């Protein structure tokens, strides 16, 4: 590296840092974020967490109720993910470069995926809440829509990766399109796709909390209720339950992944 390119790269780094600093400043200005104050709240917040977010005997009495809601949330997430996976499988096959039926359907599938992924789950929750009311189906549908978008994109990648070689070989033997997709492409892509589904189950349990707060269903609603009642011991218990659930689901899916991939 000669001196000139060195100077140039140093200049580039400098510019880059400057841009980051300017953007950070602008962001702080527009959001009224005070960095020093933000830093100062961390110890205060941690202190508050350790002194108030404690599970007490009293809050443990609420455990059966919390667990019931937690179960609803887990089921909601699994059902939304599984059904979304079925839909995404079709969209994924249509959208993949190697297994697409025609260009129109391929673009259509990718478009559906992009829209349902990029419209925030918040918007779906709020719109669905208006007509479906405060029940599990609302939460289920809100999670379902977002999951279809995410899984379709992931499945398209898995299918593209899995199908390159075998599609050509099976076409050459005279196999039909459906035979090729169901007997060569999907078996090959399946473990990868299941890995994505497991990831999405875990993500959806966490998202279900958010959706629950917005739509008044599941564990999110329970959290919101105790939060607004300022019953922080119960809040701590709910949080603990969610943490344990997510970690357990994570461990299970990691184990499955190890076996199937």
């Amino acid at each position, binding site marked *: 590296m000669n001196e000139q390119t060195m100077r140039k790269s140093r200049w580039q780094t400098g510019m880059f840092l400057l841009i980051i600093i300017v953007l950070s400043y602008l962001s702080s200005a527009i959001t009224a974020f005070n960095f020093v104050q933000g830093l100062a709240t961390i110890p205060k917040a941690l202190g508050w967490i350790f002194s108030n977010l404690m599970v007490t005997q009293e809050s443990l009495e609420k455990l059966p109720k919390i667990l019931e809601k937690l179960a609803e949330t887990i089921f909601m997430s699994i059902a939304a993910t599984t059904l979304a996976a079925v839909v995404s499988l079709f969209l994924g096959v249509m959208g993949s470069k190697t297994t697409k039926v025609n260009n129109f359907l391929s673009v259509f599938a990718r478009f559906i995926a992009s829209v349902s992924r990029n419209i925030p789950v918040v918007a779906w929750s709020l719109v669905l809440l208006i007509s479906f009311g405060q029940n599990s189906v609302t939460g289920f549908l809100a999670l379902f829509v977002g999951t279809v978008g995410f899984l379709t994109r992931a499945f398209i990648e898995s299918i593209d990766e899995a199908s390159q070689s075998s599609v050509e070989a099976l076409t050459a033997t005279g*196999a039909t399109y459906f035979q090729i997709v169901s007997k060569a492409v999907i078996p090959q892509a399946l473990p990868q796709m299941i890995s994505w589904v497991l990831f999405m189950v875990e993500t959806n349990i966490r998202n279900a909390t958010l959706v629950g707060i917005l739509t008044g269903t599941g564990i999110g609603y329970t959290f919101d209720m105790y939060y607004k009642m300022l019953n922080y011991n119960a809040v701590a218990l709910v949080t603990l339950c969610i943490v344990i659930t997510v970690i357990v689901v994570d461990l299970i899916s990691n184990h499955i992944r190890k076996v199937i991939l």
Partner: protein
Amino acid sequence: MSLLKVEGLGKSYTADKKILKNIDFEIKAGEFVSIIGPSGAGKSTMLRCMNRMIEFNEGKIIFNNQDVGSLNKKELRKLRTNIGMVFQHYNLVPRLSVIENVLHGRYGYKTTLQGLLGRYTEEEKERAFYLLEKLGIHEHAYKRCDQLSGGQQQRVGICRALIQEPKLILCDEPIASLDPNSSKVIMDHLKSISLEMGITCLVNLHQVEVAQHYSDRIIGLNNGEIVFDGNGRNLGEEQIHKIYGTKSRELITA
């Protein structure tokens, strides 16, 4: 009688560049023919025109008294069951068992529904084992294909082509990804297939010596044109230069 007849075959993707120009040749049943030529000469494209994995623009291909170019979708499927294909990268489904991959060669004979249900007859399975044994990989039948070496995978690929009961096998660079030992095993198997089973073989190859050693006839391709067609013994220094050398000369003059 000729099994495969190619007349004036031409292929181009864009108007100004022709990949294949005016290809003519005829192959008799049971012949072992190699196609040699530098990379980019159009060998793979030509091979794939034979079973219309690539659609050609000009000329005519007659296989087994059928006009390949005029077949509809259903007839094309039927034609393909009669033509086996072997690939450079084996093109197996890595996660499935060896025996399943071999049986994939039977789909051309099944309706979509039979295929979806995954039903194979016991005769088909017996036949698959017979072929695996013939190629010496029967003890791996229940292994996943990605656990096999390259040479073993290519033998699975050959079994998949053979179970189609084809009249012709197209081999696209079957030994280009293999070490010399495995290459010899594969070429020996291909040769014995053509001798014992009377199946016609059309093989794309890179190495001149291999082509000379195994084939009844060699077709030399350069820049989309046939520049040599004849017995391997007649392939001298000058012809080899004609097949492989033009490119380097072009590079110098251009």
